[in-house]
């Protein structure tokens, strides 16, 4: 059977991205033909500025080589303009008269530079700034001529001016507004930017209206004259006063246009066989000129072209970054503020740093950063997530701070890092390697960088830094997705919250059921989504859902930690860090009997037996069980340990019985499955020898009771626990701790530690659920106790023969 024909007009970033997305999900659905007016394959238009500045070559910015089209069986016509769409016969006509029939048509005609309607705007030497041809022309002009005038002090204009200056021209930027980048910056930041560009030798004429371009004797442009009579010499005039969606072709075919080709949320035009994406489109009255929204559109269009029919494009919040090497500037959302908004401002004119955050009803709605944009990505995430920032307010301006997104050596300013600096300490990836991969392979997302370089793919602590490097390399093209919407993995469009909600509201109790209801794209998921789904099932339906051991990571499947040589480690539980001579004897016996090469005391106050063969595990567990010991769950996304100090039972400073409190907590939480590992500590006095300040739940005894701290972390993201509440009795410690952990179990995303969860929802929210809502707290406590009522020692189950296949080797 013949395949339907998809024809695409326009061979730029938005269009080709749509085709790429389409090939990913429905590789054989269409015979694809692409027409491009330019004589090049798809290239990264955003990087034309570095080409102009001499920092990159045209070859380096090609995204899809001709080979790519060939390999995917795409019929490519470059340098061929389409002049007519015949919607009745369903074919397109190219300028050479050739025709191409279509079943589906995709319009990605991009935009044109806006040429000021002044006399002389068609003179030789007057150009827009849009494509490789324009860039080449500017580079040529810089060799022969001296005076350049750039009309327009927006992003593109400044990047052009910077490039021409670097190429040796004398450059004047003419701008109608009162300050530069008035669509991205407020006046203070705009003036700071102007000053640093002036320091580089650029000249500016603000609030100037161009009246005419004057022809010289050679026939080429020679000067620019303004309305106030002033005239300046110009051998090259670059129009960078904005772009206009290119919809003339669509309009001539009778497709409804209104300052762009009008599309609905599925990127469909008024002709249902015709889709449109990119800068030529008007969606809900907005034509986007930045690449990130266009990629979102591409994804949606591809989904509908593939016949899946899910996914809507509902518009984008955009952020901006200027790609002028050495100038750091970021802006997003409503950066001007005004009625009903509040502003937090830091202005260090001498130091060249300016930060303004605009807040409305306790939410970040916009901001401008100049000079120090390290936290741009974080602010943008807060903005897109619409997170309540009340609890962050006092330190919001100082950024995400802490060790969080600090990379290996505490680095947190991507732009200032040397190429040789290590970004990912786990996999030894340098900044240079990442930048090279981003440029050469045309990477746009954190996931792509992870795949290609391995940076941020192990512990993930450098993910924020990698995002910054992405942002500083590709500028506005980088936009993180809002956390709530971020797909769980490549198998689905749905984010964690959506999946949890569906499981809860639809009563889904098995992984296949959830995958079918939520239209998973893969037959049985992947190593990322299956463990997450398994956790969501069990935590939502503790007694109805059945554990799927094949969706557990090996450590949880065999209740021991896999080591680099394929052997395992065994950690018996020591409640509250307490043990007995009999237990120690049993551990010593087991270590000798099974030739354990290494015996180590862990940070969680127990003993680790390392180097055990998988076949020996059940036998060893049987021996330990016989001595009264159970699994320490040192391998699981589950309760690990409750660390304690000796407390008032022995210590002369102790104010509370921390050991017995710790044992009670650990018994209550035994076998608790969670989004990630959970560690607790109980200290008997504020000297805090049990290090409760860096635990998921830290309890500190004081004379009048206990203080409870939550969401601390001593690992990847060193995070000090935050004060939740002060209570009087042991019973209250159990209730509040359990309620907090149950809240985390119900709302946390799989693999989020409590610190990530609380950072996402805010401590105020946690307090409102745990401290202020007594009934809700008791209900949470009740649900935790209920879900653990059948807790069993997993070792004993395996000793009794459960899934014993797992531990037996076949011979052949």
């Amino acid at each position, binding site marked *: 059977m013949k395949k339907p024909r998809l024809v695409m007009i326009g061979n730029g970033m938005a269009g080709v991205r749509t085709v790429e997305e389409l090939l990913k999900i429905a590789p054989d659905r269409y015979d694809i033909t692409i027409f491009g007016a330019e004589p090049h394959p798809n290239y990264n238009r955003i990087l034309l500025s570095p080409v102009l500045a001499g920092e990159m070559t045209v070859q380096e910015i090609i995204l899809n080589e001709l080979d790519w089209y060939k390999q995917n069986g795409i019929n490519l016509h470059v340098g061929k303009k389409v002049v007519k769409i015949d919607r009745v016969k369903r074919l397109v006509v190219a300028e050479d008269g050739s025709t191409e029939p279509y079943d589906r048509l995709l319009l990605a005609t991009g935009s044109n530079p806006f040429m000021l309607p002044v006399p002389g705007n068609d003179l030789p030497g007057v150009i827009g700034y849009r494509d490789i041809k324009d860039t080449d022309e500017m580079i040529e002009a810089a060799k022969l001529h001296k005076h350049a005038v750039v009309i327009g002090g927006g992003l593109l204009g400044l990047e052009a001016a910077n490039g021409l200056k670097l190429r040796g021209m004398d450059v004047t930027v003419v701008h109608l507004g009162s300050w530069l980048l008035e669509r991205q910056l407020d006046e203070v930041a705009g003036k700071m930017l102007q000053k640093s560009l002036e320091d580089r030798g650029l000249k500016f004429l603000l609030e100037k209206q161009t009246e005419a371009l004057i022809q010289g004797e050679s026939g080429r442009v020679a000067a620019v004259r303004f309305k106030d009579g002033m005239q300046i010499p110009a051998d090259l005039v670059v129009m960078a006063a904005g772009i206009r969606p290119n919809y003339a072709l669509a309009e001539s075919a009778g497709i409804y246009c209104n300052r762009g080709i009008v599309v609905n949320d599925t990127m469909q035009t008024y002709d249902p066989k015709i889709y449109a994406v990119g800068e030529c489109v008007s969606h809900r009255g907005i034509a986007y000129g930045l690449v990130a929204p266009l990629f979102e559109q591409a994804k949606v269009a591809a989904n509908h072209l593939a016949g899946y029919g899910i996914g809507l494009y509902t518009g984008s919040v955009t952020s901006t970054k200027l790609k002028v090497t050495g100038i750091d500037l970021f802006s997003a959302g409503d950066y001007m503020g005004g009625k009903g908004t509040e502003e937090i401002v830091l202005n260090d004119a001498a130091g060249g740093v300016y930060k303004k955050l605009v807040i409305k009803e306790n939410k970040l709605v916009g901001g401008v950063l100049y000079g120090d944009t390290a936290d741009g990505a974080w602010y943008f995430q807060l903005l897109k997530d619409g997170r309540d920032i009340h609890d962050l307010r006092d330190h919001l301006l100082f950024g995400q701070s802490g060790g969080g997104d600090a990379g290996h050596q505490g680095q947190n300013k991507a732009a200032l890092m040397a190429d040789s600096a290590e970004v990912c300490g786990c996999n030894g990836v340098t900044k240079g390697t990442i930048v090279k991969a981003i440029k050469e392979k045309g990477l746009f997302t954190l996931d792509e960088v992870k*795949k*290609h370089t391995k940076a941020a*793919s*192990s512990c993930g602590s450098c993910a924020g830094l990698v995002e910054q490097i992405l942002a500083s390399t590709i500028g506005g093209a980088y936009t993180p997705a809002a956390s709530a919407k971020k797909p769980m993995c490549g198998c689905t469009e749905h984010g964690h919250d959506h999946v949890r909600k569906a499981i809860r509201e639809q009563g889904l109790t098995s992984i296949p059921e959830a995958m079918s209801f939520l239209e998973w794209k*893969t*037959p*049985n*998921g*992947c*190593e990322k989504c*299956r*463990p997450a789904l398994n956790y969501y099932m069990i935590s939502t339906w503790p007694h109805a859902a059945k554990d799927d*051991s*094949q*969706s557990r*990571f*090996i450590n949880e*499947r*065999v209740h021991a930690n*896999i080591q*680099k040589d*394929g052997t395992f480690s065994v950690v018996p539980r020591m409640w509250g860090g307490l043990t007995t001579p009999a237990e120690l004897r049993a551990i010593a016996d087991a270590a000798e009997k099974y030739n354990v090469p290494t015996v180590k005391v862990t940070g969680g106050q127990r003993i680790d037996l390392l180097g055990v063969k998988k076949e020996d595990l059940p036998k060893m567990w049987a021996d330990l069980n016989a001595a009264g010991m159970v699994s320490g769950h040192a391998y699981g996304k589950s309760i690990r340990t409750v660390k304690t100090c000796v407390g008032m039972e022995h210590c002369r400073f102790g104010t509370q019985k921390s050991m017995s409190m710790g044992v009670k907590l650990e018994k209550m939480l035994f076998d608790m499955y969670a989004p990630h590992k959970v560690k607790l500590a109980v200290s008997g006095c504020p000297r805090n020898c049990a290090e409760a300040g860096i635990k998921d739940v830290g309890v500190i005894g004081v004379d009048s009771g206990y203080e409870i701290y939550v969401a601390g972390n001593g690992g990847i993201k060193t995070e000090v626990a935050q004060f939740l509440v002060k209570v009087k009795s042991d019973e209250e410690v159990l209730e509040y701790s359990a309620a907090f952990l149950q809240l985390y179990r119900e709302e946390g995303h799989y693999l989020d530690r409590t610190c990530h969860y609380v950072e996402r929802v805010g401590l105020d929210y946690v307090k409102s659920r745990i401290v202020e809502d007594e009934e809700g707290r008791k209900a949470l406590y009740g649900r935790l106790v209920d879900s653990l009522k059948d807790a069993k020692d997993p070792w004993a189950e395996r000793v009794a023969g459960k*899934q014993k*296949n797992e531990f*037996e*080797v*076949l*011979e*052949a």
Partner: protein
Amino acid sequence: MSDWKQVCTLEDIPRLGSRVVRHEEDGGVIDIAIFRTQGEVFALRNKCPHKGGPLSEGIVHGKQVTCPLHGWKLYLETGEAVAPDVGCARRYPVKVEDGVVFIQF
């Protein structure tokens, strides 16, 4: 080429899971991982081309397995690593007849 050897029954391998087959070859002992996907059985040398991780302990999804040590993914049909990683684990032919699994060594 040596003969087909009977290994186990299909039911001995958990669905979306695997088992280890120990085999003597050239005087040494090697471990082979046999995988069961939704409907097929595959066998690979139980050694990830990256750092030698035991593939038998990985999560099986689609026709791939993810190594438990550092998350490399391998195609079960060919033993090749999923791009951008590069490497290969030796593949062994497998057949299932009347619910009995055979490997050709």
